[in-house]
């Protein structure tokens, strides 16, 4: 092993910063492409059924957006496949017999499927019969969804491990079905798929609105604006409901995370709901808090007098409260705004109406709203499970190591520059594509 001249806590911090940056960058693109694959499939079917050139133009434009986003996801995903081992050697050492096969299944069942059929979908429209092309589009959408299935199975297992046994000091799977369908998995996967649906529908609606603003009225842009808004209007309330169920599941299996999300410091009955506060992790109290009496007990236990466990019940193994608390509020706040925007948009586009310019500007501003909400939600769940990497089994601090701080620092700098350039170029190209309209 390479010796680490730096303080181990610095190395841990760098390893986390680098991995966090990479995964935060990566998650943006799958969270868009998982659902966009299905939206494309819908556009493709609409074109096949109607033969309407507006649907074809729509399909082609969004195929370009998809290809771009998919490439960003692929390249940052390849990086992650290396960093799993290099940044967290202790992780594979401890739970590699569980994590490894789940990752392997993702590569085998999803990556090749989506990458191979993407080629046919992007470049093969004139080379294969229509039904084969539709089939290829379906395979791409299925591939992205299957990929989400495996990676969320692994993430959920790390949050709520189940189905594993000890064999001579090694953790191995006792029952693979229990490992995959662990207690938080059903909620997490549906929550994530809906998040992807909302992200994609706002990107579709937002860029369509931008097209209407910049390239003038256009049948294809009107169609996609409506598609995005209707989809978002249906998915947003569903997400509120599923999010609540996911929260109740978290209360059962990861109560410390809930305590951090709601900034509940001390165990008690009739716990108030903290709407806003500045949690102080050192003094373990909330400053400037605005509360609804008995609100938290009500929401989480559906009983105003019910007892809720606070941070004190789990100390010292507790996550930092302030980031989890704020990230949770950002996620919920964005969710509410997105719901309002979607419902307002559906009303404004009824019976083929063209919304007023200020509404189009609003939808444009909401283009990447799903990213903000998804990233915030991801921060809640990943910071909220600290100090554990795998709940009750492996601490984050025990998984790092192997690479020196200097190497981590140098490569981190390289990644930051590369990602910044890529993200800027991505956004410029997306708005440019949309600004040119469907004939680009």
């Amino acid at each position, binding site marked *: 092993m390479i010796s680490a001249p730096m303080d181990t806590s610095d190395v841990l911090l760098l390893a986390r910063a680098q991995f966090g940056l990479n995964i935060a960058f990566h998650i943006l693109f799958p969270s868009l492409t998982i659902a966009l694959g299905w939206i494309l499939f819908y556009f493709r079917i609409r074109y096949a059924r109607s033969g309407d050139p507006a649907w074809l133009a729509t399909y082609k434009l969004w195929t370009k957006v998809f290809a*771009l986003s998919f490439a960003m996801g692929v390249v940052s995903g390849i990086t992650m496949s290396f960093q799993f*081992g290099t940044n967290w050697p202790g992780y594979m050492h401890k739970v590699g017999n569980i994590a490894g096969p789940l990752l392997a299944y993702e590569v085998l069942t999803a990556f090749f499927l989506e990458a*191979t059929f*993407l080629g046919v979908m992007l470049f093969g429209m004139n080379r294969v019969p229509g039904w084969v092309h539709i089939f290829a589009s379906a395979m791409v959408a299925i591939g992205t969804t299957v990929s989400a299935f495996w990676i969320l199975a692994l993430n959920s297992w790390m949050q709520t491990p189940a189905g594993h046994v000890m064999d001579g000091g090694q953790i191995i799977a006792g029952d693979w079905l229990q490992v995959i369908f662990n207690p938080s998995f059903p909620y997490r996967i549906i929550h994530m798929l809906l998040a992807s649906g909302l992200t994609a529908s706002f990107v579709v609606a937002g860029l369509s609105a931008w097209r209407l603003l910049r390239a003038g009225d256009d049948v294809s842009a009107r169609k996609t604006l409506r598609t995005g808004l209707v989809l978002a209007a249906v998915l947003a309330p569903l997400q509120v409901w599923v999010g609540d169920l996911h929260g109740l599941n978290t209360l059962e299996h990861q109560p410390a995370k809930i305590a951090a999300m709601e900034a509940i410091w001390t165990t008690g009955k009739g716990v108030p709901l903290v709407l806003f506060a500045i949690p102080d992790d050192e003094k373990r109290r909330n400053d400037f808090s605005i509360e609804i009496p008995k609100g938290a007990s009500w929401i989480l236990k559906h009983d105003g007098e019910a007892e809720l466990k606070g941070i004190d019940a789990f100390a010292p193994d507790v996550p930092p409260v302030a980031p989890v608390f704020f990230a949770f509020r950002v996620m919920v706040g964005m969710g509410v705004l997105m719901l309002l925007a979607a419902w307002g948009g559906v009303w404004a586009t009824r019976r083929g109406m063209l919304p007023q310019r200020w509404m189009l500007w609003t939808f444009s501003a909401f283009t990447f709203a799903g990213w903000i909400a998804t990233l915030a939600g991801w921060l809640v769940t990943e910071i909220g499970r600290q100090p554990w990497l795998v709940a009750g089994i492996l601490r984050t601090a025990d998984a790092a190591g192997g690479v020196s701080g200097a190497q981590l620092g140098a490569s981190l700098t390289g990644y930051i520059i590369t990602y910044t350039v890529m993200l800027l170029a*991505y956004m410029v190209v997306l708005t440019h594509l949309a600004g040119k309209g469907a004939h680009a």
Partner: protein
Amino acid sequence: MSLDLPLVFAALMGLAILLYVVLDGYDLGVGMLMPAADAREQELMVASIGPFWDANETWLVLGVGILLVAFPAAHGIVLGALYLPVAAMLIGLMLRGVAFEFRVKAEGWHRELWNWLFWFGSFLASFAQGLMLGRYITGFHSGFGYYLFAMLVGASLCGGYVLLGATWLIFKTEGALQKKALAWARWGLIWVALGVALVSLATPFVSTTVQAKWFDFPRTLALMLLPAATLASGWLVWATTGRLRRGEREWDWMPLAATVAIFALAFAGLAYSLFPYVVMDRMTIWEAASHPSALKFMLVGVAIVLPFLIAYTAFAYRVFRGKARAGLYE
């Protein structure tokens, strides 16, 4: 009889890495050749690899994935020691991957910039992969000679990828671009011949393990079949490109096939040199392997998925058979 699971997974990993090197090798090679072509030819070159590069890179994920999940103890050591070249390779792959998409949508100097990044990313990734290989063979020893050796392997691998890319273009294009590709292939072949000769000569000096394996009479005589077959394949590339240059139209796939043979033979030699180590001189595949329960579960998946994987990959290559046409996204 019970299955030797680590051996099976070592073979699978080898297969995935060989497939990666050959498949992504040709599109990295095409990327490195971009500056030698004019704008219209560049479109054709990109069109020839457009439908494939995503899936080609997936073999890298599978290769590294198998290292990670089947030989976790080795993954940490190997990729920890190769951390910086790996980071350089990843940044190279990222740049070229997105440049591929961006350049189609950009105009004017933006397009030139992305073309340049496409070339630079291809080169960086190729050179870094060669460095990784060079460091890996020598068991990550430090010292000037070892680093020089790794650089030599890096330069040789670039030559190898250029040869793959050029022969791919001979196969997938026609007319003026094919003529250019024929010239590139011959230069690439000279480059590779020099590189392979130097690396083969140097390897016994930087590794006594390799030396012992190859200089062991009378086995050495049988092993000489490998360099002999490599030489024959090289000659085949030279001869068939010569025929094609004289206006022959048939056998345009032969230079590519012979180049793939060179890579496969070099790979076989490498595998022979390393076996049974997964970390040179330090850790064998059996010492590094995961728990049998994990390997069994993955083998089931491989057995089910691999036939489908081969079938739809073959299907994709069939869909895009024949000479490449410009105009992506048509």
